[in-house]
């Protein structure tokens, strides 16, 4: 094998297709695999609730810690995550009040502005904790679809929404009261 042939071989190899379309759509199987844990009806209520509470307590403590310890360094940041309508549901049987949604959206908008004032590390911490809370909201909502009348789950969801508002309020340094169940 001489160098010229070798170089030509490698040049040809570099021309081979790097993108190949599968013969069938693989998404349905992938979707089934990633959605399966969410749809599982055999979820263990107490374990799931306990896990969610642990997550929330951890998130809240962490937020409090970073907010009291973290500096307010000004640094350029990218826009933060937005709120999706799907988060403001309450299982499949209830809708959250418009007042709650408005308050939530306002808090989120103000929090976005305030996040710009945080250092990247603190901001990342806040966003990560919010992501945990929002994942918990999705999980609890999913569980409520299976058991819409589960009072424990309803209360847990309410507390989780409240926790989210508390975090946003802390970040924003706002003074609005956290919504109570009567507001919803």
């Amino acid at each position, binding site marked *: 094998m001489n160098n010229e042939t*070798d170089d030509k071989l490698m040049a040809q190899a570099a021309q*081979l297709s790097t993108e*190949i379309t*599968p013969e069938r759509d693989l998404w349905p199987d992938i979707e089934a695999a990633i959605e399966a844990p969410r749809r599982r009806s055999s979820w263990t209520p107490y374990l799931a609730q306990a896990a969610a509470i642990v997550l929330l307590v951890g998130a809240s403590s962490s937020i409090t810690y970073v907010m009291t310890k973290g500096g307010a360094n000004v640094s350029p940041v990218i826009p933060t995550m937005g709120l999706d309508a799907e988060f403001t549901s309450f299982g499949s049987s209830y809708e959250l009040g418009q007042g709650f949604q408005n308050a939530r959206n306002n808090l989120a908008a103000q929090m976005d502005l305030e996040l710009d004032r945080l250092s990247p590390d603190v901001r990342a911490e806040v966003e990560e904790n919010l*992501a945990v809370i929002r994942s918990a909201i*999705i999980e609890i909502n999913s569980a409520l679809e299976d058991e819409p009348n589960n009072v424990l789950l309803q209360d847990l969801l309410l507390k989780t929404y409240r926790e989210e508002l508390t975090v946003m309020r802390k970040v924003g340094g706002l003074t609005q009261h956290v919504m109570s169940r009567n507001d919803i």
Partner: protein
Amino acid sequence: MAALLTAETSDYSQEMVTAPQPAISQEAAWIRRAQRSDSRAFEKLYRMHIDKVYGLCLRMTGNVAEAEDCAQDAFIQAWNKLSKFRGESAFATWLHRIAVNAVLGRMRKSKREQDRIQIASEISPAPASIGDSGNLRDLSDAVDRLPEGARHVFVLSGIYGYSHEEASNLLGIAVGTSKAQLHRARRLLSQQLTEQGFEA
């Protein structure tokens, strides 16, 4: 040869990093939504990257069924690990690493599994030449027939333009091993193609 590989080094990564800005920002938005467990956003990411991931899996396994399984595994793993994606590398690069691990994971499962894959490859030759024509198709078929180690290095270095450092890192082998496997692959390919009257 070294010069050729050096020239190609990271071209693929660069290509991904320097993708059109709107596509990147759209992708970033989908990633953020998927990180919040939005499977519809993840489907967008799947549609955007499946050809790259499947192409890599098919080149590495040389078998359609295995490539499909590996690509599926890769996206499922990506979904499970998405919260850990910090954007330190391009999303496509991150996915590529997961796909390579998915392929290697399946290969390492057991000797029996490897034998099964080998038999499956023989029964159902991979149409990895999809999109390739003429001499390229011959080369593609010849790559499929390479021994596993040589094929993996050749695919990553020769086709996808990874450097030996990157390829060895992805494959979990020493840089020297990567170089040796590439040399072996070139020699075997040259022999195969010469026998077929291939003109590079």
